């Protein structure tokens, strides 16, 4: 079973890295969310295969009879999924705002629009950094 997961992780990570390297923010967003799946699957692989060497199955991590699977990776992933949800909402809102304020989701155009820092004589100031705030 671990082999299957490893292959899934390979494919998912490959696709998400490919997407994240694109120049369209929407594709990047999709890549990020897909990467979340890859990471979660990678973590659950740490609990070992649910299939026992004898052929039987381990039981879900709820106290009872039988050999249970490791509960810790599951708890970690549950946390990760929920955090993923928050990140997703925030990211998508940022996308909406970026599109509304700049009219584009193309990274190259965005980079042109907001050079990182002003001239060398100026000391770094609070509003010197790259930031497309709400008010723009």
């Amino acid at each position, binding site marked *: *079973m*671990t*082999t299957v*997961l*490893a*292959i*899934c*992780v*390979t*494919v998912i990570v*490959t*696709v998400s*890295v*490919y997407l994240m*390297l694109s*120049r369209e923010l929407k594709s*990047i967003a*999709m890549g990020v*969310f*897909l990467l979340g799946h890859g990471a*979660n699957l*990678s973590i*659950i*692989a*740490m*609990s*070992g*295969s*649910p*299939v026992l060497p004898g052929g039987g199955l*381990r039981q*879900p*991590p*709820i*106290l009872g009879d039988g050999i*249970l*699977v*490791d*509960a*810790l*990776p*599951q*708890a970690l992933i*549950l946390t990760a999924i*929920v955090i993923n*949800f*928050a990140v*997703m*909402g925030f990211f*998508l*809102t940022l996308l*909406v*705002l970026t*599109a*509304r304020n700049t009219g584009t989701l*193309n*990274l*190259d155009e965005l980079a042109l629009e907001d050079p*990182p*820092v002003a001239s060398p004589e100026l000391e770094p100031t609070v509003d010197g950094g790259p930031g497309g705030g709400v008010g723009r």
Partner: protein
Amino acid sequence: MTGRSGRGSNNGAVVPVDPALVLAAIGAPVVAGTATLLLPRGRTSLRVLLATCGPLASLLFVGAHLRRYGVASNEEGTTAIAWVPSLNLDLGFLVDGLATFFALLIAGVGVLIVLYSRAYFGSDGPSLARFFPTLGLFTTAMLGVVLADHMLLTVLFWELTSISSFFLIGWDRDDEEAVKRATQAFVTTGLGGLSLLGGVLLLGDATGSWRWSGLVTGASDIGSGGTIVAAFILIFIGAASKSAQWPFHYWLPGAMLAPTPVSAYLHSATMVKAGVFLLGRLLPVFGLLSLWLPMVVAFGAVTMLLGAVLALQQHELKRMFAYATVSQLGLFVCMYGLGGATDGHGVSAIDWDLSQIASHALYKAPLFLVAGALAHRVGARRMSELFGLWRRRVPGARLPAVILLAAGYALAGGPGTVSFVAKELFFGSVRHAAGTRPLLVVVAVMAVMAAMCNVAIAVRLAATVFGWRTGVGDAAGASTHGAGHGNDRWGAVLWLPAAGLVLLQYVGGLVPTVWNSVFGRLEVNVNDEAFAGGLPWFWEPFLHPGVPLAMSMAAIVLGIALGCSALMRGQVDDVHDRIYPESYRLILRYGHRAFHRVQTGHLRHYLVLMFAMLLLSISWAAWIDPTMLRLPDGLAPFESLSGLMLGAVVCAAAIALPLVSERVVRVLVLGASGFAVVGLYLVYQAPDLALTQLMFEIISVILFLLVLRLLPRPDRRPRISPAPRLVLAVLVGLVVGWMTLLAGHAAEQRGEEVATLGEFFEEHSLHGSELTDGHGGGGRNIVNVILVDFRGFDTLGEITVLATAALGVWSMLPGRRRHRDGGFPRMVPGVGSPAGIDSLILRTAVQLVFPLTMLFAVYAALKGHDGPGGGFIAGLVTAVGLCTYRMAFGQRAFHRLLPIHPRWLVFVGLSVAAGVAALPLLLGQPLLRSGSATLSLGGEGLHLVSAMAFDLGVLLVVVGVAVGMIGRLGEELNW
């Protein structure tokens, strides 16, 4: 750290000293200074009196301490207030002779400075109101530096002196130059402080003793290893920067833009001596290092001569005195450096170091104070403007002039002052050390030259005041503008403190028994070698002439000649003044270039960099351990058919994602891969995960589809060449997949005897054991127990993150009402209507399903501790139900169903969770400890645990966040 902590600490020793006295002495100035803020505006005199109480109280407390306990030797003088004993952290104080002396000096001069500043600032109420709290803070910090025993405490107070002195130097906030100089001083001494911190950390870690007292006791066995030497060098850099040693000395003359009371206090009497004090502390510790003598003496001697030469060529009184201070600080450092010259048994070649330091404070502070007084009375601080002052009959200027000359005489080290004897002693110790190290003759020559410059300065001061032709400048440039205020009843305070201090110089010089009775007691315990005698009568050197006297006389004769001659008369600029601005400029320029090199502003570049680092580090690991690359045996890819098929679906969906171009299809494909992952979780026997992921997928598909409507359509342009992208992606994917395979396989092959964290949770999920003091989680669902109990604090943080993300969304997309007033243009015209999607099938289905969804949510919430479910799942289920309801029936119906804003759910949820977490604290138990009870519910026993209330908070937060986010994005679409 804990393992070695026993050696240096004072565990065994009886500690009779009461820390309260020390603490009161340290705290009094800042308390009194801050208290002046409470006084009404006009009451300047009252303000001054209150501020005086601070250092005065410190003086009395230290005096009381001295009376009660006498001068403690090293170990006996320690006292501590425990703070975190397990980390060996405490408020440790060391009140030995050195510390007592410095504390008395700081507090004593502090009192005079407070009074003087009243006269200096005049009745300028706001300025004084600001001044006293800052000065109090500085005095406290300085007292802390000298009284601290714990090394980190010293560093803490050390930094505090840097910070407070920054405020004091840049006192005139409108004077850009002053602020710049203040920054220069702060950065220089602050960097030195960092160096000190590094040295202290190294030293503490290497010796296991974090106390100066412990270090001194164990000084013989700290050895001279690389760490110790590095620690010493770092600490020396810290001390040198604070005490303005070459090449860091530039900040001190620069800091002369400070008000005169500050210059007199910080830059002559106290703060600049902190480094000297530290060297005095370190001498018993590091004195035996072979590096000590050459390094400390070299820096000290260079500073001594450089400062003196530069001081002679200044025309502005304060700058002149500043360089003279630099010179004198160099002498102190040199003196402590010579303390490392040993003759077989312990430390020698150092006598009466405290008298040296006191002597300097007693003439240099008056010089500064008088310079300020003259600036007030005459309106001038430049030598040329002061020319012929004596004959000019400026009202109230003669008295300061007399004090100026008296202090100048002490500066020159003329017979009859303490300064004279002190200089004799210094020459004596140089000669003593040079006896065994011939190279030190150079230092002796430098010392004579420095003394000569001091004499010349005194001669020129006198010539200027009396208007002799040998003085600097002439009366042509004299002016009396700005002469002025300070002539009210506080006017005398302009010169009284200076007079008092100078008087002590002569009292000590002429009647050394008085001096000895004060400082003699403190001196004895500084060095191991007890100095039995006292400061000699001033004629004694003449009765027993020797090399030191010859050096003194040579310095005086040559100095008078130099002072009268035309040599070194011009005003010179110190080349070191350019160090700071130049480095600042260079850092800015190259920092800017480097920044642009690294920060391209293109996300792709950052990502490529990160992924490349990942690949590199893994390759490196594989290079070291090639077994990593071997395919593990015993792989069973076909053991679960359902797993295999689901895996295929996941892979297919993922591969399809970049291939399809229609964006709605892409979202659906993304969802498909997510749903297949749900299946994989089921295969992995993770029902909680499967439920959570399922709900998450539903919500995220809805969210994504909503957002798509709000985004512009992508423009069709040539893609980035996919080949390099693909190669990098495949490499990263292979590496991560391979790691997964190895880790998963290792987990499978793990023997039974290997204890895992998971087993711990499994054993303690329901009942506790000795390991957990008998407290168990009280639940059967291990995953849920981990979330709300074992890792409950983590979960609390997590729902806080959720709430923050939701707040972010709400604040980035403010409500619709604001839009109407004058908000953003809509890129996408509204689709749908507030009445929801007009579909009979959907509405009927939702009407049926919605109650069931809610019922299931309640069940999941209640049974979550024992079976699949829990707050997260129940919350997501509720959110899905509410969202579908909203889709079917529209906003208005939804608002009838949930009449409050979702942020209230988040608020209440967070409060409940935090409250449940904190409740045990009130009962004296650890955070998040759970209690339990069983409730009979119609025959079915319901096991209630307090963690379930925590779970309820989680549920509310999740519902609020999910519904709130989707609702807000939906409103954007008018949906």
